[in-house]
């Protein structure tokens, strides 16, 4: 087998020579697929010099390095904000890093770092605020002014993780609507969302990482940028390769760089990326010719708030992009979060640039690795689980209990929640003091008339945060803890958590 990156069909120099003379054959990945179908891979690989790709999606690991220049008298900014969005100031006096997911301290979810970057690129005025402690060399203690992109010395987009080769699709198996970084997911597998441009995906089109590496020149946000190396969480062995990229914001265009908000999740940045794939060998050609039908991803249940979400189904991008996915025999509507239209536009623009001789290809200094670490974070300190906090002294009711006597028990024991169990101790329902008040108002006598049958529960080994989130979602203040056969083991209430978990001074 030949080495990764072997230039068997053509060299970078030969391609650039053809670009210069206007003879290079350049195609978008969509068109290359058609060419391969018509004339076969071998011939297509011989004829086509460059295949262009594109993607335009939400990429949270994005941000910009900014240098403001020195004021008179100068300041060593210790904290700084752009339109009230805090930027990272652990750098030299007037350098900062503005992250896409940082949120405005006044507007919250509606405006974040991604929006500031878009506004900068659009030429808008940005409020700059900074604080300092004052030093002998930097006496100034604060700044409040406005800046535009033209005032800045450097405004450099530098994104640690972009352009995932492909991404998991999402659905929701719970009985409530959820709001995630994969968008709004309706209950009972009500819809499927996905991201990534499938057969136009820059990294999937170089699946073996034969051409992408340090220095690879790319389309970035409407300007020309380059790949710095592999991105964080780069995991090409699982087809989850990523890249780190940089580019000059001053060259970019807000059609390909947009601030965005995912409802109840946070802010992010839509980034447009296109990579030219030089057809240097047949392996590259085969990968560039992959079709939506051959690119698969898992549809995960985002209703499970865990890092290991179960896969509901494996689907191809062709199925996802058709707008309908079959899950458990039902047809579910699917839609994209990244823009297929803009992805196509980027691939077409990049092709145009190369054909016009405005963009040349280059051999990377070093290829992106074809293997990466992707480990979970194991927590070394012992964290309290449900079993450590829950109340085990159980007060349990029977469905046939009389309401008045139950009310007396609740008062005597000082509890607000009463799980109802059958003869074997299995959970049947729950009563709260509010239900009892309602029962008195409506003149009901027995527990089974008023108890809630669909009970939100917790398991003994769950993390407290997971259960707290569940209680918040259902707007309740306590859950019965049950085992796998639904037998009641205890109760966990907000009260237990505040008393036992939050240490008091």
């Amino acid at each position: 087998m030949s080495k990764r990156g072997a230039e068997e069909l053509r060299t970078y120099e030969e391609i650039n020579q053809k670009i210069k003379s206007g003879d290079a054959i350049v195609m978008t990945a969509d068109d290359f697929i058609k060419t391969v179908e018509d004339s076969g891979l071998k011939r297509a690989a011989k004829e086509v010099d460059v295949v262009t790709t594109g993607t335009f999606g939400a990429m949270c690991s994005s941000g910009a390095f900014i240098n403001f220049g020195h004021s008179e008298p100068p300041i060593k900014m210790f904290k700084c904000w752009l339109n009230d969005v805090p930027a990272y100031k652990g750098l030299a006096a007037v350098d900062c890093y503005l992250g896409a997911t940082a949120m405005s301290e006044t507007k919250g979810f509606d405006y974040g770092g991604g929006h500031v970057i878009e506004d900068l690129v659009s030429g808008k005025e940005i409020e700059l605020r900074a604080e300092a402690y004052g030093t002998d060399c930097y006496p100034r203690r604060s700044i409040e002014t406005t800046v535009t992109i033209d005032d800045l010395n450097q405004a450099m987009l530098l994104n640690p993780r972009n352009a995932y080769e492909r991404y998991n699709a999402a659905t929701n198996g719970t009985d409530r609507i959820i709001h995630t970084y994969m968008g709004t997911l309706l209950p009972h597998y009500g819809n499927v969302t996905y991201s990534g441009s499938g057969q136009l995906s820059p990294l999937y089109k170089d699946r073996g990482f034969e051409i992408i590496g340090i220095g690879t020149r790319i389309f970035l946000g409407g300007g020309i940028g380059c790949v710095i190396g592999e991105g964080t969480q780069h995991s090409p062995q699982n087809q989850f390769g990523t890249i780190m990229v940089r580019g000059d914001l001053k060259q970019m265009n807000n059609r390909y760089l947009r601030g965005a908000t995912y409802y109840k999740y946070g802010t992010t940045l839509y980034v447009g990326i296109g990579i030219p794939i030089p057809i240097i060998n047949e392996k590259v050609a085969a990968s560039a010719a992959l079709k939506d039908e051959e690119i698969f991803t898992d549809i995960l249940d985002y209703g499970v708030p865990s890092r290991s979400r179960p896969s509901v189904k494996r689907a191809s991008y062709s199925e996802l992009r058709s707008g309908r996915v079959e899950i458990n025999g039902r047809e579910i509507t699917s839609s994209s979060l990244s823009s297929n239209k803009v992805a196509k536009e980027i691939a077409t623009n990049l092709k145009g640039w190369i054909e016009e001789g405005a963009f040349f290809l280059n051999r990377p200094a070093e290829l992106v690795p074809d293997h990466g670490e992707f480990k979970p974070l194991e927590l070394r300190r012992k964290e309290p689980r449900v079993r450590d906090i829950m109340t085990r002294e159980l007060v349990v009711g029977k469905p046939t209990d009389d309401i008045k006597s139950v009310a007396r028990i609740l008062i005597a024991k000082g509890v607000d929640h009463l799980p109802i169990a059958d003869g074997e101790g299995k959970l049947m329902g729950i009563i709260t003091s509010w239900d009892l008040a309602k029962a008195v108002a409506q003149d009901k006598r027995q527990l089974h008339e008023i108890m809630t049958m669909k009970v939100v529960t917790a398991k003994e080994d769950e993390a407290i945060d997971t259960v707290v989130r569940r209680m918040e979602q259902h707007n309740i203040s306590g859950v019965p803890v049950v085992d796998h056969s639904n037998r009641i083991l205890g109760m966990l209430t907000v009260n237990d958590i505040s008393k036992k978990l939050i240490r008091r001074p």
Partner: protein
Amino acid sequence: MKLKLNYSRENIGKPILSDIILRTGIPINILEAKIEPNTGEMLIDVPTEGERLKEFSSLLQRAGVTVKEITRTIEIDRGKCITCGACVSPCPVKALAQDENWDIIFYEEKCIGCGICVYTCPVNAIRML
């Protein structure tokens, strides 16, 4: 035609809608309902038009219910829209779709004005009318 009904404190507790359904024989569809102790708000779809619709509305009004015809629900700012599709699959009534160029299509007649698309849009390009 979709109608938004507002019940005041005075007409809560009366079977107004069922009475009118029985009287007119029009099988309405309740799209959204919010019943509070003192007020009620309902969005219904009345599958009729012209005189029959007028009759249905006036019966409601006579019973003290405020009736508003809902013709326009949302508006998409095409200049802001990035044609991502984030609004499409969450729409519970398939009033949003994408054409062959991935541009967003909006079927006004299907829309129930639930507002999911409004907050789902990542670039704030959809607003409620």
